[in-house]
């Protein structure tokens, strides 16, 4: 659009909102967690499975705004095949991108940078970080150990 009202909603975000790659549940998983934002009803449920010290599979069921849905899905891309340490580093870097507007050069946030525009909307920060909070919880989840 001429005046870029949709800056925030980059095509990557819109694609993943309309057709998420990681939507669904895992039948075999070793961690899961829910995140929710009572203020607007955003809700995401995550399932993860590890193999050989790395994240081998991830799926999410997200009901919420475009930002939350895309954030869940792009997170899936970013964390697959990573170690827990790498995932926490990514989470920290992403949360810093959202809250401060900038992130360190490493780790490479890659496509997650599409969500950088959320920084300007303080009331939307939680939409972008909700999936990452759920992921931290899922990584700590012992109940399926």
């Amino acid at each position, binding site marked *: *659009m001429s005046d870029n*009202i*949709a*800056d*925030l*909603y980059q095509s990557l975000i*819109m694609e993943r909102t309309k057709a998420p790659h990681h939507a669904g549940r895992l039948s075999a998983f070793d961690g899961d967690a829910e995140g929710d934002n*009572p*203020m*607007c*009803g*955003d809700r995401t449920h995550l399932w993860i499975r590890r193999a050989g010290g790395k994240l081998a599979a991830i799926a999410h069921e997200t*009901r*919420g*705004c*475009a*930002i939350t849905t895309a954030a869940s899905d792009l997170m899936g891309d970013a964390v697959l095949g990573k170690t827990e340490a790498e995932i926490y580093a990514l989470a920290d870097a992403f949360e810093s991108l959202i809250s401060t507007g900038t992130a360190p050069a490493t780790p490479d946030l890659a496509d997650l940078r599409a969500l950088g525009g959320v920084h300007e*909307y303080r009331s*939307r920060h939680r*939409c972008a970080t909700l999936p990452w909070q759920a992921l931290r919880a899922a990584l700590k989840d012992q109940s399926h150990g």
Partner: protein
Amino acid sequence: MSDVLHAPTLDIEKIRADFPILGQLVHNKKLVFLDSAASAQKPRVVIDAMVNAMETQYANVHRGLHWMSERTSDAYEGARDKVAALLNARDRSEIIFTRNATESLNLVAHSFGRTHIKPGQAVLISQMEHHANIVPWHMLRDAHGITLRIARITDAGEIDMDDVEAKLADGNVALLSITHMSNVLGTYTPAARLAALAHRYGAKILLDGSQAVVHRAVDVQALDADFYVFSGHKLYGPSGIGVLWARREILDSMPPFMGGGDMIDRVSYERSTWAKPPFRFEAGTPAILEAIGLGAAIDYVSAIGFDAIAAHERDLTEHGIAVLSAIEGLHILGAAQDRGGVISFTLDGVHAHDVATLLDKQGIAVRAGHHCAEPLMGRLGVDSTARASFALYTTRGEIDALAAGLRRVKQVFG
């Protein structure tokens, strides 16, 4: 935009000039402020009244013998007279200043609730209450053992009067506490009929007028209400000031909510005795400047007149329903016969938060979320809605801008 004026007696351009903020740009777009139901903008006269007090006539009230204190007390008590006139209260002592409608409700729940509602007796609210008229009753229930009953609303978003009567019928309801206008659906409730019903079954009635008082003339005597609450900041006044009106005989029978200066008759180390209403319920230094600001706001709306305001807002609401309904995939919540200037809606495939953000980028301020009425969202089967709300300074042109803005939102999500 076409700012055609349809309510004949209201000169909208003149009114808009009274509100300095309306000329602001947001994201380089002209501000279209459609969030007045959350808090309204302030006219120049309100700002000036507060500035004038701070610059020329300020001291603490009531306790001073000097000129500044006497003049400030006059202004503060003068604001009480204005509120009494606004609500047509029988007596100025029936007007209590609080911080906001929320505090007014908590005052009633705490003071009236613990002394006039017996454990086991019930408070009846409706399905379309703001949290401010739900949570205090949860707290009273948990502390004091009352029960809470919820009257149903119809699918049109109106009070189900049969259900209200059914829930009053056993005579065990001490208080019907109900909104006078829903902040989500815009519904005006039939307050006088509700009052008659409540009284028939021995219950008192509290009307949450937070939204209602902004749009129409309210006459607590004609309604035969027992309590009425509202917030100054929605009525074009400052933040930090709210009102509780109650019948004097009820106030006389209520203990204080908070203790401190100004609300006492005598204090010794051993005991305190209470002043008469309204002072019994105003502990400590009150919101002096804010009462003065609210007084100026009441003068302002009174000079315009609620007939003109109500006519203007009726026109805006009709226009809003017409142009928004024309948008494919847009659903307006509620279809009450009698409604004020609030329209909540959902847009297929677009979350309310995304609607609000994309409208904001176009300079259009609407609210999105549960509007502090989370249980109502469940009743309506939605997680959240977007809400456009209108004030006396809102124009048809702004509503057209909203409709155009929503079409662009749909394109982005298209």
